[in-house]
Protein backbone atom coordinates (compact mmCIF):
# COMPACT_ATOMS: atom_id res chain seq x y z
CA UNK A 1 0.00 0.00 0.00
CA UNK A 2 1.51 3.31 -1.03
CA UNK A 3 1.70 6.09 1.51
CA UNK A 4 0.42 9.41 0.24
CA UNK A 5 1.42 12.78 1.60
CA UNK A 6 -1.74 14.80 1.18
CA UNK A 7 -0.20 17.95 2.64
CA UNK A 8 2.40 17.90 -0.09
CA UNK A 9 -0.24 17.17 -2.75
CA UNK A 10 -2.48 19.98 -1.50
CA UNK A 11 0.18 22.58 -2.37
CA UNK A 12 -0.19 22.06 -6.10
CA UNK A 13 -3.87 21.15 -5.98
CA UNK A 14 -5.39 24.47 -6.99
CA UNK A 15 -2.99 24.90 -9.85
CA UNK A 16 -3.66 21.43 -11.22
CA UNK A 17 -7.42 21.85 -10.91
CA UNK A 18 -7.29 25.22 -12.63
CA UNK A 19 -5.26 23.87 -15.56
CA UNK A 20 -7.51 20.84 -15.98
CA UNK A 21 -10.65 22.98 -15.81
CA UNK A 22 -9.24 25.30 -18.47
CA UNK A 23 -8.08 22.59 -20.85
CA UNK A 24 -10.91 20.11 -20.40
CA UNK A 25 -13.70 22.62 -19.78
CA UNK A 26 -15.10 20.47 -17.02
CA UNK A 27 -14.94 20.34 -13.23
CA UNK A 28 -13.25 17.22 -11.82
CA UNK A 29 -14.61 18.09 -8.36
CA UNK A 30 -18.10 17.18 -9.54
CA UNK A 31 -17.10 13.49 -9.55
CA UNK A 32 -18.48 11.48 -6.63
CA UNK A 33 -16.52 8.33 -7.47
CA UNK A 34 -19.37 6.07 -8.57
CA UNK A 35 -17.06 4.16 -10.90
CA UNK A 36 -19.39 4.00 -13.90
CA UNK A 37 -16.61 5.37 -16.13
CA UNK A 38 -14.27 2.58 -15.11
CA UNK A 39 -16.86 -0.18 -15.44
CA UNK A 40 -17.50 0.74 -19.08
CA UNK A 41 -13.94 1.63 -20.12
CA UNK A 42 -12.78 -0.79 -22.84
CA UNK A 43 -9.13 -0.32 -21.87
CA UNK A 44 -9.37 -0.29 -18.09
CA UNK A 45 -8.01 -3.85 -18.02
CA UNK A 46 -4.62 -2.55 -19.13
CA UNK A 47 -4.46 0.67 -17.06
CA UNK A 48 -2.48 1.15 -13.84
CA UNK A 49 -5.11 3.52 -12.44
CA UNK A 50 -8.79 3.19 -13.33
CA UNK A 51 -10.34 6.31 -14.92
CA UNK A 52 -12.21 6.93 -11.65
CA UNK A 53 -8.90 6.88 -9.77
CA UNK A 54 -7.34 9.37 -12.18
CA UNK A 55 -10.16 11.80 -11.44
CA UNK A 56 -9.58 11.23 -7.72
CA UNK A 57 -5.85 11.93 -8.11
CA UNK A 58 -6.72 15.23 -9.78
CA UNK A 59 -9.18 16.09 -7.02
CA UNK A 60 -6.42 15.55 -4.47
CA UNK A 61 -3.78 17.43 -6.45
CA UNK A 62 -1.61 14.34 -6.93
CA UNK A 63 -0.01 15.56 -10.10
CA UNK A 64 2.95 13.16 -10.11
CA UNK A 65 0.81 10.05 -9.98
CA UNK A 66 -1.73 11.34 -12.51
CA UNK A 67 0.79 12.54 -15.09
CA UNK A 68 3.02 9.53 -14.56
CA UNK A 69 0.22 6.99 -15.10
CA UNK A 70 -0.17 4.63 -18.02
CA UNK A 71 -3.91 5.44 -18.02
CA UNK A 72 -3.62 8.85 -19.66
CA UNK A 73 -1.82 7.24 -22.62
CA UNK A 74 -3.93 4.09 -22.89
CA UNK A 75 -7.20 6.07 -23.01
CA UNK A 76 -8.38 5.60 -26.60
CA UNK A 77 -10.64 8.64 -26.44
CA UNK A 78 -13.88 6.74 -27.09
CA UNK A 79 -15.76 8.90 -24.56
CA UNK A 80 -17.87 6.05 -23.24
CA UNK A 81 -16.99 7.33 -19.75
CA UNK A 82 -18.14 10.87 -20.52
CA UNK A 83 -21.31 9.58 -22.17
CA UNK A 84 -22.27 7.65 -19.02
CA UNK A 85 -21.04 10.00 -16.28
CA UNK A 86 -23.99 10.95 -14.05
CA UNK A 87 -22.13 14.11 -13.00
CA UNK A 88 -21.32 15.34 -16.52
CA UNK A 89 -17.59 15.19 -15.95
CA UNK A 90 -15.82 15.13 -19.31
CA UNK A 91 -13.48 12.34 -18.33
CA UNK A 92 -12.00 11.89 -21.81
CA UNK A 93 -11.27 15.64 -21.79
CA UNK A 94 -9.46 15.27 -18.45
CA UNK A 95 -7.31 12.52 -19.98
CA UNK A 96 -6.47 14.81 -22.91
CA UNK A 97 -5.66 17.64 -20.50
CA UNK A 98 -3.33 15.44 -18.44
CA UNK A 99 -1.50 14.27 -21.58
CA UNK A 100 -1.03 17.89 -22.57
CA UNK A 101 0.28 18.78 -19.11
CA UNK A 102 2.65 15.81 -19.18
CA UNK A 103 3.94 17.04 -22.54
CA UNK A 104 4.36 20.61 -21.26
CA UNK A 105 6.35 19.29 -18.29
CA UNK A 106 8.67 17.49 -20.69
CA UNK A 107 8.05 14.36 -18.65
CA UNK A 108 9.08 10.96 -20.03
CA UNK A 109 5.74 9.32 -20.89
CA UNK A 110 4.84 6.12 -19.07
CA UNK A 111 3.74 4.61 -22.42
CA UNK A 112 6.66 5.46 -24.65
CA UNK A 113 5.28 3.80 -27.80
CA UNK A 114 1.89 5.49 -27.55
CA UNK A 115 3.50 8.90 -27.14
CA UNK A 116 5.89 8.15 -30.03
CA UNK A 117 2.91 7.37 -32.25
CA UNK A 118 1.27 10.70 -31.48
CA UNK A 119 4.52 12.57 -32.06
CA UNK A 120 5.00 10.86 -35.42
CA UNK A 121 1.38 11.55 -36.35
CA UNK A 122 1.60 15.29 -35.66
CA UNK A 123 4.98 15.50 -37.34
CA UNK A 124 3.39 14.09 -40.47
CA UNK A 125 0.51 16.58 -40.26
CA UNK A 126 2.88 19.49 -39.79
CA UNK A 127 5.04 18.45 -42.70
CA UNK A 128 2.37 17.97 -45.36
CA UNK A 129 -0.84 19.30 -43.88
CA UNK A 130 -2.23 15.78 -44.05
CA UNK A 131 -1.13 12.46 -42.58
CA UNK A 132 0.88 10.28 -44.91
CA UNK A 133 0.40 6.88 -43.30
CA UNK A 134 3.53 5.20 -44.62
CA UNK A 135 5.72 8.16 -43.68
CA UNK A 136 4.15 8.36 -40.25
CA UNK A 137 4.62 4.66 -39.51
CA UNK A 138 8.19 4.85 -40.81
CA UNK A 139 9.01 7.68 -38.46
CA UNK A 140 7.31 5.79 -35.61
CA UNK A 141 9.47 2.74 -36.29
CA UNK A 142 12.66 4.80 -36.25
CA UNK A 143 11.59 6.53 -33.08
CA UNK A 144 10.80 3.26 -31.25
CA UNK A 145 13.34 1.05 -33.09
CA UNK A 146 10.51 -1.39 -33.83
CA UNK A 147 11.63 -1.68 -37.40
CA UNK A 148 10.14 -5.06 -38.20
CA UNK A 149 6.80 -4.76 -36.44
CA UNK A 150 3.84 -5.44 -38.76
CA UNK A 151 6.01 -6.03 -41.81
CA UNK A 152 3.60 -8.64 -43.16
CA UNK A 153 0.65 -6.36 -42.60
CA UNK A 154 2.38 -3.49 -44.40
CA UNK A 155 3.07 -5.71 -47.37
CA UNK A 156 -0.54 -6.89 -47.42
CA UNK A 157 -1.79 -3.28 -47.41
CA UNK A 158 0.63 -2.34 -50.18
CA UNK A 159 -0.60 -5.26 -52.26
CA UNK A 160 -4.18 -4.09 -51.77
CA UNK A 161 -3.20 -0.55 -52.76
CA UNK A 162 -4.06 0.84 -49.36
CA UNK A 163 -0.60 2.11 -48.43
CA UNK A 164 0.55 4.55 -51.10
CA UNK A 165 4.25 5.38 -51.19
CA UNK A 166 3.54 8.92 -52.25
CA UNK A 167 2.10 11.56 -49.93
CA UNK A 168 -0.72 13.90 -51.02
CA UNK A 169 0.22 17.10 -49.22
CA UNK A 170 -1.50 20.46 -49.43
CA UNK A 171 -0.25 22.65 -52.24
CA UNK A 172 0.73 25.36 -49.76
CA UNK A 173 2.66 23.88 -46.84
CA UNK A 174 2.43 27.17 -44.94
CA UNK A 175 -1.32 26.70 -44.42
CA UNK A 176 -0.88 24.18 -41.65
CA UNK A 177 2.46 25.47 -40.36
CA UNK A 178 0.62 28.70 -39.59
CA UNK A 179 -1.96 26.80 -37.50
CA UNK A 180 0.72 25.02 -35.47
CA UNK A 181 2.45 28.33 -34.79
CA UNK A 182 -0.79 30.03 -33.77
CA UNK A 183 -1.52 27.20 -31.32
CA UNK A 184 2.00 27.45 -29.88
CA UNK A 185 1.64 31.18 -29.34
CA UNK A 186 -1.64 30.70 -27.45
CA UNK A 187 0.00 27.98 -25.31
Amino acid at each position, binding site marked *: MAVVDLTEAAKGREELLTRVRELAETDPLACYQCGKCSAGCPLSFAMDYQPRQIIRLVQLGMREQALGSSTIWLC*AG*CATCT*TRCPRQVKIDGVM*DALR*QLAGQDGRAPREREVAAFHTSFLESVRRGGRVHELGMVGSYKLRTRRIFQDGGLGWN*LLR*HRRLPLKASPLRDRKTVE*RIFRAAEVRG
Partner: protein
Amino acid sequence: MKLAYYPGCSSHGSAADYDRSARAVAGALALELVDVPEWNCCGASSAHGADHRLAMYLPGRNLAVAAGMGMGGVVTPCAACYSRLNRAHHWLAEDRRRWLELSAAVGVPYNDVGKPRSLLEVVVGDVGLEAVAAQVRRPLKGLKAAAYYGCLMLKPPEVARFDDPENPRSMDDLLQALGAQPVRWGFKTECCGASLSVSRPELVEKLVGDILDNASAAGAECVVTACPMCQANLEQRRSERHRLPVFYFTDLAGIAFGLSPRELGIPMHLGEPLELLRGKGLLAAGEEGQG
Protein backbone atom coordinates in the same frame (compact mmCIF):
# COMPACT_ATOMS: atom_id res chain seq x y z
CA MET B 1 -28.48 17.98 -52.80
CA LYS B 2 -25.04 19.57 -52.85
CA LEU B 3 -22.66 19.18 -49.91
CA ALA B 4 -19.09 20.10 -49.06
CA TYR B 5 -17.15 16.84 -48.74
CA TYR B 6 -14.33 16.32 -46.25
CA PRO B 7 -12.65 13.02 -47.20
CA GLY B 8 -9.98 12.88 -44.47
CA CYS B 9 -6.39 11.68 -44.72
CA SER B 10 -7.17 7.96 -44.78
CA SER B 11 -9.08 8.46 -48.05
CA HIS B 12 -5.68 8.77 -49.73
CA GLY B 13 -4.36 5.58 -48.17
CA SER B 14 -5.77 2.86 -45.95
CA ALA B 15 -9.36 3.87 -46.74
CA ALA B 16 -9.03 4.56 -50.47
CA ASP B 17 -11.62 1.80 -50.89
CA TYR B 18 -14.10 3.62 -48.62
CA ASP B 19 -13.61 6.86 -50.52
CA ARG B 20 -14.46 5.03 -53.70
CA SER B 21 -17.65 3.40 -52.41
CA ALA B 22 -18.72 6.58 -50.62
CA ARG B 23 -18.54 8.62 -53.81
CA ALA B 24 -20.20 5.90 -55.88
CA VAL B 25 -23.12 5.54 -53.48
CA ALA B 26 -23.52 9.30 -53.15
CA GLY B 27 -23.72 9.48 -56.92
CA ALA B 28 -26.41 6.80 -57.03
CA LEU B 29 -28.43 8.80 -54.49
CA ALA B 30 -28.06 12.11 -56.38
CA LEU B 31 -25.92 13.60 -53.64
CA GLU B 32 -23.39 15.95 -55.12
CA LEU B 33 -20.20 15.94 -53.06
CA VAL B 34 -17.73 18.76 -53.67
CA ASP B 35 -14.33 18.36 -51.98
CA VAL B 36 -13.38 21.07 -49.51
CA PRO B 37 -10.55 22.76 -51.43
CA GLU B 38 -7.12 22.27 -49.86
CA TRP B 39 -8.59 20.52 -46.82
CA ASN B 40 -6.13 19.76 -44.03
CA CYS B 41 -5.88 16.98 -41.45
CA CYS B 42 -8.44 17.29 -38.64
CA GLY B 43 -5.85 16.26 -36.05
CA ALA B 44 -7.42 12.92 -35.07
CA SER B 45 -6.23 10.95 -33.17
CA SER B 46 -3.30 12.91 -31.79
CA ALA B 47 -3.82 16.68 -31.62
CA HIS B 48 -6.32 16.56 -28.75
CA GLY B 49 -3.77 14.98 -26.43
CA ALA B 50 -1.05 17.42 -27.43
CA ASP B 51 -2.59 20.88 -27.55
CA HIS B 52 -6.18 21.95 -26.97
CA ARG B 53 -5.94 24.92 -29.34
CA LEU B 54 -4.35 22.89 -32.11
CA ALA B 55 -7.15 20.34 -31.71
CA MET B 56 -9.70 23.10 -32.36
CA TYR B 57 -7.84 25.04 -35.07
CA LEU B 58 -7.06 22.09 -37.37
CA PRO B 59 -10.68 21.00 -37.90
CA GLY B 60 -11.84 24.60 -37.48
CA ARG B 61 -10.00 25.70 -40.62
CA ASN B 62 -11.84 23.06 -42.64
CA LEU B 63 -15.18 24.24 -41.27
CA ALA B 64 -14.34 27.82 -42.21
CA VAL B 65 -13.31 26.86 -45.75
CA ALA B 66 -16.42 24.65 -46.11
CA ALA B 67 -18.70 27.51 -45.03
CA GLY B 68 -17.18 29.68 -47.74
CA MET B 69 -18.28 27.16 -50.37
CA GLY B 70 -21.92 28.07 -49.81
CA MET B 71 -23.26 24.52 -49.90
CA GLY B 72 -25.88 22.79 -47.82
CA GLY B 73 -23.41 21.81 -45.09
CA VAL B 74 -20.34 19.65 -44.73
CA VAL B 75 -20.23 15.86 -44.69
CA THR B 76 -17.47 13.34 -43.95
CA PRO B 77 -17.39 9.56 -44.33
CA CYS B 78 -14.86 9.16 -41.48
CA ALA B 79 -16.09 8.79 -37.89
CA ALA B 80 -12.82 10.11 -36.47
CA CYS B 81 -12.94 13.23 -38.66
CA TYR B 82 -16.64 13.55 -37.83
CA SER B 83 -15.82 13.57 -34.15
CA ARG B 84 -13.05 16.16 -34.47
CA LEU B 85 -15.07 18.42 -36.79
CA ASN B 86 -17.97 18.26 -34.38
CA ARG B 87 -15.78 18.97 -31.36
CA ALA B 88 -14.50 22.11 -33.05
CA HIS B 89 -17.99 23.09 -34.21
CA HIS B 90 -19.32 22.64 -30.66
CA TRP B 91 -16.44 24.67 -29.19
CA LEU B 92 -17.06 27.49 -31.67
CA ALA B 93 -20.82 27.46 -31.13
CA GLU B 94 -20.34 27.94 -27.38
CA ASP B 95 -18.69 31.34 -27.62
CA ARG B 96 -18.75 33.73 -30.53
CA ARG B 97 -15.47 35.34 -29.51
CA ARG B 98 -13.84 32.10 -30.58
CA TRP B 99 -14.86 32.82 -34.17
CA LEU B 100 -12.44 35.74 -34.23
CA GLU B 101 -9.72 33.74 -32.52
CA LEU B 102 -10.05 30.92 -35.04
CA SER B 103 -10.22 33.24 -38.04
CA ALA B 104 -6.98 34.91 -36.98
CA ALA B 105 -5.27 31.59 -36.26
CA VAL B 106 -6.11 29.89 -39.56
CA GLY B 107 -6.31 32.91 -41.86
CA VAL B 108 -9.82 32.16 -43.10
CA PRO B 109 -12.86 34.08 -41.82
CA TYR B 110 -15.06 31.71 -39.83
CA ASN B 111 -18.75 31.38 -40.49
CA ASP B 112 -21.01 28.62 -39.26
CA VAL B 113 -21.41 25.90 -41.89
CA GLY B 114 -23.93 24.05 -39.70
CA LYS B 115 -23.38 20.88 -37.75
CA PRO B 116 -20.89 18.63 -39.58
CA ARG B 117 -22.64 15.42 -40.62
CA SER B 118 -21.47 11.90 -41.27
CA LEU B 119 -22.25 10.26 -44.57
CA LEU B 120 -24.43 7.73 -42.72
CA GLU B 121 -26.37 10.60 -41.15
CA VAL B 122 -26.95 12.20 -44.55
CA VAL B 123 -28.00 8.95 -46.21
CA VAL B 124 -30.40 7.95 -43.45
CA GLY B 125 -31.57 11.42 -42.39
CA ASP B 126 -31.49 13.62 -45.49
CA VAL B 127 -31.86 11.20 -48.38
CA GLY B 128 -34.13 9.00 -46.30
CA LEU B 129 -34.76 5.27 -46.23
CA GLU B 130 -37.60 5.40 -48.75
CA ALA B 131 -35.41 7.00 -51.37
CA VAL B 132 -32.66 4.49 -50.55
CA ALA B 133 -35.05 1.54 -50.89
CA ALA B 134 -36.21 2.91 -54.25
CA GLN B 135 -32.65 2.52 -55.58
CA VAL B 136 -32.31 -1.14 -54.60
CA ARG B 137 -31.80 -3.38 -57.66
CA ARG B 138 -30.61 -6.50 -55.86
CA PRO B 139 -31.90 -6.80 -52.32
CA LEU B 140 -29.34 -8.24 -49.88
CA LYS B 141 -31.69 -11.10 -49.14
CA GLY B 142 -30.65 -13.44 -46.35
CA LEU B 143 -27.48 -11.49 -45.51
CA LYS B 144 -27.09 -11.39 -41.73
CA ALA B 145 -25.12 -8.30 -40.85
CA ALA B 146 -23.89 -6.79 -37.58
CA ALA B 147 -24.17 -3.01 -37.78
CA TYR B 148 -21.06 -1.75 -35.99
CA TYR B 149 -21.13 1.98 -35.22
CA GLY B 150 -18.00 2.24 -33.11
CA CYS B 151 -17.55 5.05 -30.65
CA LEU B 152 -16.67 8.32 -32.34
CA MET B 153 -19.82 8.79 -34.42
CA LEU B 154 -22.01 8.71 -31.31
CA LYS B 155 -20.01 9.70 -28.24
CA PRO B 156 -20.27 11.93 -26.38
CA PRO B 157 -23.89 12.53 -27.45
CA GLU B 158 -23.90 16.29 -26.75
CA VAL B 159 -21.16 16.67 -29.35
CA ALA B 160 -22.16 13.98 -31.87
CA ARG B 161 -25.92 14.65 -31.66
CA PHE B 162 -26.77 11.81 -34.02
CA ASP B 163 -28.19 8.51 -32.77
CA ASP B 164 -28.58 6.75 -29.41
CA PRO B 165 -25.04 6.29 -28.02
CA GLU B 166 -25.87 2.93 -26.39
CA ASN B 167 -28.25 1.34 -28.86
CA PRO B 168 -28.22 3.15 -32.19
CA ARG B 169 -30.61 2.08 -34.95
CA SER B 170 -29.77 4.15 -38.04
CA MET B 171 -27.41 1.68 -39.72
CA ASP B 172 -29.63 -1.28 -38.78
CA ASP B 173 -32.57 0.49 -40.43
CA LEU B 174 -30.46 1.23 -43.49
CA LEU B 175 -29.39 -2.43 -43.80
CA GLN B 176 -33.03 -3.44 -43.54
CA ALA B 177 -33.95 -1.00 -46.30
CA LEU B 178 -31.28 -2.68 -48.45
CA GLY B 179 -32.93 -6.04 -47.85
CA ALA B 180 -30.38 -7.39 -45.36
CA GLN B 181 -31.10 -8.77 -41.93
CA PRO B 182 -29.42 -6.77 -39.13
CA VAL B 183 -28.65 -8.95 -36.09
CA ARG B 184 -29.25 -7.91 -32.48
CA TRP B 185 -25.96 -7.71 -30.68
CA GLY B 186 -24.25 -6.01 -27.77
CA PHE B 187 -21.08 -4.48 -29.17
CA LYS B 188 -22.55 -1.92 -31.54
CA THR B 189 -20.79 1.04 -29.95
CA GLU B 190 -17.79 -0.57 -28.26
CA CYS B 191 -14.46 1.05 -29.12
CA CYS B 192 -12.13 -0.99 -31.36
CA GLY B 193 -9.05 0.85 -30.05
CA ALA B 194 -7.86 2.02 -33.46
CA SER B 195 -5.80 4.90 -32.06
CA LEU B 196 -3.60 2.34 -30.25
CA SER B 197 -3.38 -0.05 -33.17
CA VAL B 198 0.19 0.85 -34.11
CA SER B 199 1.57 1.44 -30.63
CA ARG B 200 -0.13 -1.28 -28.53
CA PRO B 201 -1.36 -3.90 -31.01
CA GLU B 202 -1.69 -6.62 -28.37
CA LEU B 203 -4.31 -4.60 -26.47
CA VAL B 204 -6.18 -3.82 -29.65
CA GLU B 205 -6.25 -7.49 -30.62
CA LYS B 206 -8.26 -8.17 -27.49
CA LEU B 207 -10.80 -5.43 -28.23
CA VAL B 208 -11.16 -6.53 -31.84
CA GLY B 209 -11.47 -10.17 -30.81
CA ASP B 210 -14.26 -9.36 -28.36
CA ILE B 211 -16.17 -7.39 -30.99
CA LEU B 212 -15.88 -10.09 -33.65
CA ASP B 213 -16.69 -12.90 -31.16
CA ASN B 214 -19.83 -11.07 -30.15
CA ALA B 215 -20.88 -10.48 -33.76
CA SER B 216 -20.31 -14.16 -34.60
CA ALA B 217 -22.23 -15.32 -31.55
CA ALA B 218 -25.16 -13.17 -32.68
CA GLY B 219 -25.19 -15.05 -35.98
CA ALA B 220 -23.73 -12.30 -38.15
CA GLU B 221 -22.07 -13.25 -41.44
CA CYS B 222 -20.36 -9.90 -41.77
CA VAL B 223 -19.68 -6.72 -39.83
CA VAL B 224 -20.64 -3.35 -41.30
CA THR B 225 -18.88 -0.13 -40.32
CA ALA B 226 -19.21 3.58 -41.03
CA CYS B 227 -15.61 4.35 -40.09
CA PRO B 228 -12.34 3.79 -41.94
CA MET B 229 -10.45 3.35 -38.67
CA CYS B 230 -12.83 0.60 -37.51
CA GLN B 231 -12.79 -1.18 -40.87
CA ALA B 232 -9.01 -1.26 -41.17
CA ASN B 233 -8.53 -2.12 -37.53
CA LEU B 234 -11.04 -4.99 -37.48
CA GLU B 235 -9.43 -6.47 -40.58
CA GLN B 236 -5.84 -5.97 -39.45
CA ARG B 237 -5.94 -6.84 -35.77
CA ARG B 238 -8.09 -9.93 -35.82
CA SER B 239 -6.79 -13.40 -35.12
CA GLU B 240 -6.78 -16.36 -37.47
CA ARG B 241 -10.03 -17.69 -36.07
CA HIS B 242 -12.04 -14.72 -37.30
CA ARG B 243 -13.19 -14.88 -40.86
CA LEU B 244 -16.07 -12.39 -40.88
CA PRO B 245 -15.75 -9.94 -43.75
CA VAL B 246 -15.81 -6.31 -42.64
CA PHE B 247 -17.66 -3.98 -45.00
CA TYR B 248 -18.26 -0.27 -45.12
CA PHE B 249 -21.98 0.48 -45.19
CA THR B 250 -21.37 2.05 -48.60
CA ASP B 251 -20.09 -1.31 -49.93
CA LEU B 252 -23.37 -3.01 -49.16
CA ALA B 253 -25.50 -0.08 -50.31
CA GLY B 254 -23.55 -0.06 -53.58
CA ILE B 255 -23.99 -3.81 -54.11
CA ALA B 256 -27.72 -3.46 -53.44
CA PHE B 257 -27.89 -0.56 -55.92
CA GLY B 258 -26.38 -2.85 -58.57
CA LEU B 259 -22.86 -1.37 -58.61
CA SER B 260 -19.97 -3.76 -59.10
CA PRO B 261 -17.49 -4.70 -56.32
CA ARG B 262 -14.78 -3.19 -58.47
CA GLU B 263 -16.47 0.22 -58.70
CA LEU B 264 -16.85 0.10 -54.93
CA GLY B 265 -13.24 -0.87 -54.17
CA ILE B 266 -14.33 -4.05 -52.38
CA PRO B 267 -11.43 -6.15 -53.73
CA MET B 268 -9.12 -3.80 -51.78
CA HIS B 269 -10.35 -5.28 -48.50
CA LEU B 270 -7.90 -7.60 -46.81
CA GLY B 271 -10.32 -10.46 -46.07
CA GLU B 272 -12.37 -12.52 -48.51
CA PRO B 273 -15.44 -10.31 -48.87
CA LEU B 274 -16.42 -11.53 -52.33
CA GLU B 275 -16.88 -15.14 -51.20
CA LEU B 276 -19.76 -14.19 -48.94
CA LEU B 277 -21.44 -12.03 -51.59
CA ARG B 278 -21.05 -14.78 -54.15
CA GLY B 279 -22.48 -17.33 -51.70
CA LYS B 280 -25.56 -15.12 -51.30
CA GLY B 281 -26.04 -14.90 -55.05
CA LEU B 282 -25.30 -11.17 -55.01
CA LEU B 283 -22.66 -11.14 -57.72
CA ALA B 284 -23.33 -11.50 -61.41
CA ALA B 285 -20.88 -13.56 -63.48
CA GLY B 286 -17.73 -11.60 -64.25
CA GLU B 287 -18.17 -9.20 -61.36
CA GLU B 288 -15.28 -10.48 -59.34
CA GLY B 289 -12.24 -8.82 -60.86
CA GLN B 290 -9.49 -7.05 -58.98
CA GLY B 291 -10.08 -3.50 -57.78
